[in-house]
């Protein structure tokens, strides 16, 4: 027997897609943003091929533990963003705020650990122009950190919109901010893989 559902009505398995979901333009923007990062990654891979011994030696001075912890922190934050989007869709303001606080705390931990890493690298005599590897390290992680900053501002704006007496952010805004945060996480996975893991011997 076929169950007839009114058109557009969500089923239990399908996530609800409404006219208010993330639009094509935003997906295209995220794709183009990642394409620019792909150019950076391509340039890195090109130079890694020509200076492999130097890159390998210097990549060994990065702490895979700190990088790994940051990877877990961002993966955890991505999960919390999913929770926040779901809570937002179902109108659970307190749940959304809780999840977003968790994401922002993860972002703060990520930035803090990155600063520790930068201080350590600079104290060891490395800098933006000290060697090809560290040029890429500072440029790639710096540009990523810039994205963490933008993402945090988007999430903070979303969270502030949930304050008492304000108009809550639209679903489209919430999902777009969430999608942006997933991109930030995805880019970090590639940076971690390339710089911290892939360049080792």
């Amino acid at each position: 027997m076929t169950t007839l559902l009114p058109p557009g009505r969500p089923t239990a398995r399908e996530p609800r897609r409404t006219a208010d979901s993330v639009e094509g333009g935003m997906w295209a923007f995220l794709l183009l943003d990642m394409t620019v990062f792909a150019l950076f990654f391509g340039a890195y891979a090109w130079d890694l091929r020509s200076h492999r011994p130097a890159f390998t030696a210097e990549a060994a001075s990065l702490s895979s533990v700190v990088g790994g912890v940051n990877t877990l922190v961002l993966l955890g934050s991505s999960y919390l963003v999913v929770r926040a989007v779901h809570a937002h869709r179902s109108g659970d303001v307190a749940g959304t705020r809780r999840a977003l606080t968790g994401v922002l705390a993860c972002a703060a931990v990520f930035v803090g650990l990155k600063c520790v890493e930068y201080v350590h690298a600079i104290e060891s005599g490395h800098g933006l122009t000290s060697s090809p590897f560290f040029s890429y390290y500072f440029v790639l992680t710096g540009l990523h950190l810039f994205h963490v900053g933008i993402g945090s501002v988007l999430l903070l704006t979303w969270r502030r919109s949930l304050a008492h007496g304000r108009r809550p952010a639209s679903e489209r805004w919430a999902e777009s901010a969430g999608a942006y945060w997933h991109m930030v996480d995805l880019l970090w996975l590639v940076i971690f893989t390339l710089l911290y893991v892939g360049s080792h011997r």
Partner: protein
Amino acid sequence: MTATTSERATAAAELRILAICGWCGPATVAVAFAGWLVAGVLPFPLRASSTTAEVVRFYAGGVHVPLGIALASVGVSLVIPLVAAMSHLVRRVDDRPLLAQVQLVAGATTAALLVVPMLVMATAGFRPDRPADLTVLLNDLAWLLFLTPVAPFVIQNLVLATAVLTHPSSVFPRWVGYLNLWVGFTFTFDVLAYAFHTGPFAWHGLLIFWLALTSYAVWLVVMGWHVRRAAVTLLHESEEDR
């Protein structure tokens, strides 16, 4: 009260001017590229790592160098009518006058910051028999002025994106708003050109010169096309109203 014939004629004339302003977008690309090709700046520009001898040889190459660059300075100035037209179209539907004003000021600043380095470059070619170090200095000044003052353009992109994405009846389609966000992003890291003489982050590098050139050209063509399209649509609407 219906508009008089002369008022309608004035409105139609204004819309034709708007369409010309739109054509200025692709014209900026065409004229500037022609100038750079004549001068020899394109297809392969001088590099941040070029030797003093290479820089002096480029500017001593002949009168086509300063003249080509002068033509490029005319090309990059053609963005001015486009900037004005975009503010006009934003203001037309948007009751937030500051957005159009910031776009206008930021766009005008960007235009000035594109013209000045062209003139410095042309000056470098004006007297190539001067002490070589001075030609290198002028060349560095021209290239760094050309590529690194990106903040006004990024502000312009952000304001245009805000105007397009937050107004329900914007003249520009929403994807143009996202395009502005992306184009702005491709310019943010151009300041790296101050730190590098070689590699992809140097002024001549893939991620500085070539990426910015590509995204700026795309932006000029897309924005110009949409300004022109808006002008044509409005012209048709005014003719149907008669």
